[in-house]
């Protein structure tokens, strides 16, 4: 039986995550290499052994040939102990099913599925799955590049500065934007309430399930997470 504990790579870090990636195409392989290089434990599953060539020689995670929603295989790689599960094969349906298996059967805390088809992305996002649609993201970004009328997070994000999303739960509900802002470290720039996104005023009072978007100093990220009890993302 394999588990997160005996997959310890050479660069293992203290708060490392155990991540399962299904699909070793360009995105899956790149993601696996990124996470592995940062010292996280990574397992990559793909139907074809040849796909693992993309990982190169330096990848020190585990590779498994098989199907991303094969219950026996997932148990074998210790899915119950994993912190995150990411389905990025080139098949929308495979990704959607793998993600649901990880989330509903194995209760993996963080599950993400890549979905090309925007329609299916919308439907399954509404059902509570965490969906990344490359089609939607990339086309929106390209649009912004062409029209140049908007700022996107990628224009702001740098080594020192990042964009953070804060979901309002009980501990923040009732507070105002002013209570959240930390001069020099964090400033809230947008508020999503239901499906409406607005620029909040400093005295705007927060409600449960609001999503705040803030610009944050990367060096203060850890303290901010702790302050707002955001947990590891």
């Amino acid at each position, binding site marked *: 039986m394999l588990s997160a504990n005996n997959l310890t790579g050479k660069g293992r870090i203290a708060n490392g995550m155990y991540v399962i990636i299904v699909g070793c195409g360009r995105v899956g392989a790149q993601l696996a290499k990124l996470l592995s290089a940062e010292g996280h434990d990574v397992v990559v599953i793909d139907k074809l052994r040849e796909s693992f060539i993309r990982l190169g020689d330096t990848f020190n995670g585990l590779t498994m040939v098989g199907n991303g929603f094969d219950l026996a295989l997932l148990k074998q790689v210790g899915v119950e102990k994993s912190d995150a599960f990411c389905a990025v094969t080139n098949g929308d*349906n495979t990704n959607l*099913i793998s993600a649901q298996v990880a989330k509903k059967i194995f209760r993996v805390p963080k599950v993400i599925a890549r979905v090309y088809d925007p329609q299916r992305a919308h439907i399954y996002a509404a059902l509570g799955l965490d969906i990344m649609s490359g089609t939607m993201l990339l086309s929106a970004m390209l649009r912004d590049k062409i029209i140049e009328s908007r700022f996107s997070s990628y224009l702001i994000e740098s080594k020192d500065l990042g964009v953070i999303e804060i979901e309002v739960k009980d501990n923040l509900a009732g507070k105002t934007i002013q209570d959240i802002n930390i001069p020099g470290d964090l400033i809230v720039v947008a508020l999503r309430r239901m499906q409406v996104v607005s620029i909040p005023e400093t005295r705007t009072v927060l409600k449960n399930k609001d999503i705040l978007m803030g610009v944050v100093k990367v060096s203060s990220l850890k303290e901010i997470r702790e302050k707002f009890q955001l947990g590891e993302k």
Partner: protein
Amino acid sequence: MYILIVGAGKVGYFLAKRLCQGRHTVSIVDKDHQTCEEIAKELKALVINGDACDPKILEEAGIMRADVLAAVTGDDEDNLIICQLAKEKFNLQRTVGRVNNPDNEYTFNELGIDVPVDSTKIIAKIIEEEVSFSDFVNLMSFKRGKLAIVRVDLPTDAPVINKQIKEIDLPKDAVLVSILRGEEVILPKGDTVLKSGDDVIALTLIGNEPQLLHLLAGKL
């Protein structure tokens, strides 16, 4: 009833054909253009060429009016997603999904498909029954494996031979459904007498199978 079938392979085609003969309204969706043309010529069904994972195609096939959707393609992922779309997006009450790989049956159940039909397992069971010389065969399980129809072939030394059914102390929650004697099918009554070589079909809770076998055939 309005029945929407996805997948016009052998299973989908024969299902559509049978349902068309009854007084049902049938629509059928398949990805393959040529398959669709052939079926449209032969059956009185609405035939839509397209990928049923696309909600628009399901709408074209009349999902808003449908009572049941049966996804019977050869691809488990497609079948599962199509059933989920039908339930979650179109609020269809009843979805039947074909399971090609028996390993996926549990997943179909867990992800909310009303009736997963595991064709591979069913066929394997029938073949197993035909090739095995065992005198006890589980013909079918229901209710997620709680209830089963079983066949017990009475050996010559079975303790129930020449006994009337009412003399047999059947386990609780088991009933004899029929007796196959040569070409004859007998519906058992209290005074029916069991003979050597009879095949007894019984409906039983799975837990009572060993007891039933012991009682009828005299072994465990």
